[in-house]
């Protein structure tokens, strides 16, 4: 198996988790209610733990150690989808992004738990159990708020419309897509997207929210190839601020 293809896959998994983990952590102290403050903080911790697991696999393949990889690259070296780097916005936007992202992430992990590349399969087997809680959290809130007051429904609908082009950008195919599929490493973005769509539809059907026609939406691609919005670099600068004061410090 082409090692570059495996690394490309690992980087996109790890970078998505790291960047969304960081965004989630920005809710710490600002959640609309205490339970949500704790929920987003806990998911931040989980996701950063997940990124560490994938950066560790990359390290075993010869890449730099996880801290170096996480804290010293610039935006154009990141492979995350643009969805995860967007600012948190108001709670409705964070919730919609969380819903769209985690329903895709769990499908990815379920598929990867059957990967022919054993190190990824083992990590994915472990992580999919944790992401179940994230999906439960997202789906519960979308079902509750998406069928509640007029304001809640309007806000969520507008955030859904805004987030969808970026959400579709999560499924940007890798240049090694067919190779990974042929080798049984990964079932591929199209397969993930099809299953994701079924799952988010099943939840949205229980609400007053409408899923726009996805065919009419142009996905925001580029993230997997290092093309990012203006929001990523400031996030990275803030995330690495303490690390860069003294990269050799023992924590």
């Amino acid at each position, binding site marked *: 198996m082409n090692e570059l293809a495996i690394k490309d896959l690992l980087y996109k998994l790890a970078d998505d988790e790291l960047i969304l983990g960081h965004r989630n952590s920005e809710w710490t102290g600002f959640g609309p209610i205490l*339970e949500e403050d*704790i929920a987003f*903080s806990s998911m931040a911790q989980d*996701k950063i733990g997940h990124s560490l697991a994938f950066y560790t696999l990359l390290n075993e393949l010869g890449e730099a150690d996880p801290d170096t990889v996480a804290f010293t690259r610039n935006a154009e070296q990141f492979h995350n989808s643009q969805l995860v780097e967007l600012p948190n916005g108001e709670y409705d936007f964070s919730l919609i992004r969380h819903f769209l992202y985690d329903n895709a992430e769990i499908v990815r992990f379920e598929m990867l738990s059957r990967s022919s590349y054993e190190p990824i399969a*083992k990590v994915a*087997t*472990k992580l999919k159990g*944790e992401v*179940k809680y994230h999906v439960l*959290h997202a789906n519960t809130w979308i079902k509750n708020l998406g069928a509640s007051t007029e304001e809640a429904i309007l806000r969520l609908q507008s955030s859904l419309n805004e987030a969808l082009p970026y959400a579709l950008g999560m499924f940007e195919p890798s240049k090694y897509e067919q190779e990974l599929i042929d080798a049984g490493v990964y079932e591929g973005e199209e397969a993930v997207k099809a299953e994701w769509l079924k799952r988010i539809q099943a939840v949205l059907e229980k609400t007053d929210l409408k899923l726009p026609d996805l065919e009419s939406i142009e996905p925001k691609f580029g993230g997997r190839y290092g093309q990012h919005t203006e929001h990523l670099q400031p996030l990275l600068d803030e995330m690495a601020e303490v690390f860069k004061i003294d990269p050799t410090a023992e924590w």
Partner: protein
Amino acid sequence: MSLTKEDILTLLEEVKDPEIPVLSLVDLGVITGVEISDEGHVTVNMTPTFAGCPAMDYMKKDVERTLEKHGISKYTVNMTFDKPWDSNKLTEKGRQHLKEFGLAPPPKYDLILDLDILEHVKCPYCDSEDTTLRTPFGPTLCRSMHYCNNCRQMFEQFKPL
């Protein structure tokens, strides 16, 4: 003196989860393997409960300290996902200790975990099953928050995973 695997596991009974000090790492189920080579080199394999658990690094160091304290100088402690942790790996003794600590033990499940079991978790204080999940996220990654409608108290559960 030649140590056996059982001796090492007995020593590791001393190492407790720093966030749940009644629970040993052996009862928590995170010690996934102990090997002793012919030359007496001890290898302990561990696996995290939750990948982002900040206590794991501390636990690993605690295992190393405990081995040294008992005069074992040749050792390796690995943290791996080779045998991923799930909550069914908690021992019966561990479950009992959790309950006494006031944390509802995770229900056992077959093969695939359905999170519906989070509703109606048995209250560790009064054993009622008339309880409600308040939030799947609690004070640590491994705990969820519940409310008991019978004894009218909030309680925490060690999450099934």
